[in-house]
């Protein structure tokens, strides 16, 4: 008996010990949430809350210690005066979150898009002059401007980028030069602070296409820093030169050096000081930043940007981190369905939930292939306007809005810019009406039905349409497809779902081997009024035909009929040198699109949700409405955000 009891004690004890070990392990990690979720460094570093000096306290200290020149010597003669979104800010704090890359991507451009997403404001460049025929543009740089290491910035840095990288004999990879053609266009230095871009043909859209995250290199590279890695400037052996250059090119790839090389100087408001691939990045204010607020205080207001790097970090984890008070900013991964969770915790966490007009994410749109290469009878149907109208009329957009967007959107096509709903355009054939849809289908000869009650071709053969979609791409792709297939069955159409993964999707797309597909953006307005004429989304081969206008042998398929009209409007809107004419063409494009419905929208104007620390100020959208889109965040203007202390 004693033996047994001891055995039991032994076993129980070991179990208890193990559990205790686990619990002990839990202890430190599950500490109670701090009552103060605001950024910690702020509290120590800027105790003087009403401090409104010309520069950040952390920099003033360095100046006093003699490790940094005084502010007057750091600022250029022509500073950028940035109007704050709402109020003059206070220095200090750390912005934590997974969007550190957005912060750096928006920085350091020659020009920056205004919130109206139509006009531009100066950034690194003080201003610019267009040639009358749009064949050249001259940028005026800021005299006395400096890189973050104090070295002067000027025309030579842009020339280094163009001559020694883009045009280098070693450069075997395409350098992404948005809106320019490296083979025909040139960059000319006028003087130390003036640069002229000369084009082989008029490029009225240059400011748009060279802006934002995609404009790799337009403001140049720190020549004094990168020359040490360039085979033309160091004494690299000839046989190693190509390898050396390739390495340099890799560092410059997608401008990642700004983040990945803490030694490289930058002109951004913050410079990288610490970085670990895939995990972590820390930016610190650039003491030489050329922007000030209207009272002359040097920007940025916030001291540090601390972020996760982009690879590790699942959307659910990022949301959980926000709920645990670990981030000060979260967008893009937040879905309408997450809204209640955050709303519930809004006060407890001290967060603020802001709605933006969403440019990219919320709009599941059906594309009807106008260049389908398969079955001729199906291709004929896809070309029939009444067939496409019937598809649109059958959709239960109210249900989609309620179930996917929590009713925050508006049923319609979403062809208009975010925040705008034009009843005639976005509401065309957009109210569910089975009778009208059935009448249209009967009218185009699809009045035969099989034993299942589904429509057949006039000769009685089975009619099946396939709907291709990438599962989980954009908000509510699968739900939208499911609802639509139910709706289309109601009007007697047999539609088969074809979920595909990314790569197959992209292959079927380039082969034009799909019938109807779901795309998470309309292409109706991807950031700028000139853009978004997305003929290639539903008529890729015809778009190729347009694009290859100058080539000896034209590719693709010449568009016919209404599609041709639409294509001509697109070309006019993209190429016209007269802005009023271009805008009119874009409007006509949308009117024609709404009538022809080569693409069919579902829910428009569902807002993008931005979750920020409740103490942040000057965030666009807080006071006045603003728009936001994936990959473009230049108009968020992070450098004038601040923490109210």
């Amino acid at each position: 008996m004693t033996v047994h009891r001891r055995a039991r004690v032994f076993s129980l004890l070991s179990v208890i010990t193990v559990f205790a070990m686990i619990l002990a392990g839990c202890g430190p990690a599950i500490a109670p949430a701090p009552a103060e979720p605001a950024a910690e460094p702020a509290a120590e570093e800027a105790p003087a809350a009403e401090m409104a000096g010309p520069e950040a306290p952390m920099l003033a200290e360095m100046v006093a210690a003699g490790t940094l020149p005084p502010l007057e010597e750091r600022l250029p003669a022509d500073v950028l005066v940035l109007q704050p979104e709402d109020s003059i800010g206070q220095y200090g704090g750390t912005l934590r979150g997974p969007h550190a890359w957005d912060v750096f991507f928006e920085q350091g451009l020659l020009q920056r898009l205004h919130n109206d997403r139509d006009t531009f404001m100066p950034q690194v460049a003080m201003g610019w002059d267009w040639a009358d025929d749009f064949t050249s543009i001259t940028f005026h740089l800021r005299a006395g401007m400096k890189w973050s290491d104090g070295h002067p910035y000027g025309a030579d840095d842009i020339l280094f980028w163009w001559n020694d990288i883009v045009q280098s004999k070693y450069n075997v990879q395409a350098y992404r030069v948005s809106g320019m053609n490296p083979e025909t266009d040139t960059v000319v230095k006028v003087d130390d602070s003036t640069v002229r871009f000369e084009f082989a043909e008029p490029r009225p859209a240059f400011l748009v296409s060279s802006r934002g995250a995609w404009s790799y290199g337009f403001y140049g590279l720190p020549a004094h820093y990168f020359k040490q890695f360039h085979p033309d400037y160091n004494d690299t052996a000839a046989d190693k030169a190509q390898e050396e250059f390739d390495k340099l090119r890799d560092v410059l790839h997608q401008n990642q050096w700004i983040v990945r090389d803490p030694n490289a100087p930058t002109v951004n408001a913050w410079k990288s000081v610490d970085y670990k691939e895939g995990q972590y990045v820390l930016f610190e204010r650039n003491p030489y930043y050329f922007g000030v607020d209207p009272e002359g205080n040097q920007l940025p207001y916030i001291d540090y940007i601390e972020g996760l790097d982009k690879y590790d970090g699942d959307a659910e984890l990022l949301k959980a981190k926000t709920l645990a008070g670990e981030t000060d900013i979260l967008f893009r991964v937040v879905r309408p369905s997450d809204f209640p969770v955050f709303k519930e915790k809004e006060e407890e966490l001290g967060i603020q939930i802001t709605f933006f007009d969403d440019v990219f994410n919320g709009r599941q749109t059906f594309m009807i292939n106008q260049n389908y290469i398969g079955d001729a009878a199906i291709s004929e149907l896809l070309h029939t306007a009444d067939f496409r109208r019937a598809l649109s009329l059958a959709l239960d957009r109210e249900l989609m809005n309620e179930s996917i967007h929590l009713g925050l959107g508006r049923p319609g096509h979403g062809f208009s810019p975010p925040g705008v709903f034009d009843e005639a355009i976005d509401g065309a054939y957009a109210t569910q009406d089975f009778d009208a849809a059935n009448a249209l289908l009967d009218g185009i000869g699809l009045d035969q039905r099989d034993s299942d009650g589904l429509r057949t071709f006039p000769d009685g053969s089975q009619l099946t349409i396939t709907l291709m979609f990438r599962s989980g791409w954009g908000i509510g792709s699968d739900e939208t497809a499911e609802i639509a297939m139910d709706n289309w069955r109601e009007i007697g159409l047999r539609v088969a779902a074809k979920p595909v993964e990314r790569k197959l999707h992209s292959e079927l797309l380039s082969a034009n081997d799909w019938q109807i597909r779901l795309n998470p953006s309309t292409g109706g307005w991807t950031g700028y009024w000139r853009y978004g004429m997305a003929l290639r989304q539903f008529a890729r081969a015809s778009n190729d035909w347009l694009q290859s206008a100058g080539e000896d042998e034209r590719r693709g398929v010449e568009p016919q009929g209404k599609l041709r009209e639409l294509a001509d409007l697109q070309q006019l809107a993209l190429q016209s040198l007269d802005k009023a004419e271009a805008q009119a063409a874009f409007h006509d494009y949308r009117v024609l699109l709404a009538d022809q419905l080569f693409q069919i929208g579902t829910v428009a104007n569902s807002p993008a949700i931005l979750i920020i620390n409740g103490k942040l100020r000057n965030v666009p959208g807080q006071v006045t409405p603003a728009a936001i889109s994936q990959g473009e965040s230049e108009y968020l203007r992070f450098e004038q955000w601040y923490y109210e202390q």
Partner: protein
Amino acid sequence: MGRAVLRRSVQMVITLWLVSILGFVIIQLPPGDFLTLLESQLEEQRLSSAQIESALTGLRARYGLDQPVYVQYLRWMSSLLRGDLGYSMALRADVNELLSERLVLTLVISFAAMVFSLALALPIGVYSAMKQYSWADYLFTVLGFLGLALPNMLLALILIFLAVTVFNASTIGGLFSPEYITADWSPAKVLDLAKHLWLPAFIVGFSSTAGTIRVVRAQMLDTLGEPFIQTARMKGLSENRVITRHALRVALNPVVSGLGLSLPGLISGETITALVLGLPTIGPLLLNALFAEDMYLAGSILVILSGALVVGNFLADLTLAWLDPRIRLVEP
């Protein structure tokens, strides 16, 4: 014994070589390559077709993608033998640099999961066997089946949810606090790692814990009925000694050989868990590499993982021989 070790070593090398071929071929199987994907990206960025073509030709030559597959394999293999794991085309960095620390952390998590799993499974298994059909036995059985049935990914999500809503955790995911991520290794950093390690270790180890409990319980039940246990008791040995020295030692055999086999489960479990918890291990890197058809990165990771598996199996066999004289003495 020495000869057996030698023979196993040769087998290991051959296995690894076959794995490297298989891995390389599997990565090549989907149509297209890294550049096909790049091409569609460039197209979306509205580059002209001439620009795209010149870009791709340059890159193709640089990465050797214009060569036949066997030449690509030989190039990769020869640099692999020199310790150079190749170049990641998508991340534009040396694979060695990308992998080094992540690999260590992956092994740390897998090892911690294994230790956790054994520390929990052995006592519970023994207890369940001794108290067969008691309420505690039933409870552990239910927990065990739950552990087997619950996917790692779901368990991780549930724990994150609980941490946020119930425990008001102030830090979620990752393996380090922000201030230690880029810091050099120090006792403080190790301590910080230990604070974060328990969650992934628990998640990864949970399902194998459940499995091991079942094995230990069944083995113990078998062994406890054996005559030699009766003999031991008749000798007047304490029950503790009977259990630990006589019964458990015999019952451990399948557990130990199972350990070698459970390695792939631990590592793949770690991959999925790492994705959900945002851990800086090779899991997320491997997934991205496979998506991007970044074949040198993906191939190197596959070979390294297989290497870990083969070596793990080898070690398990050695341990088995050390534990059990019957295995040790039979010279194959």
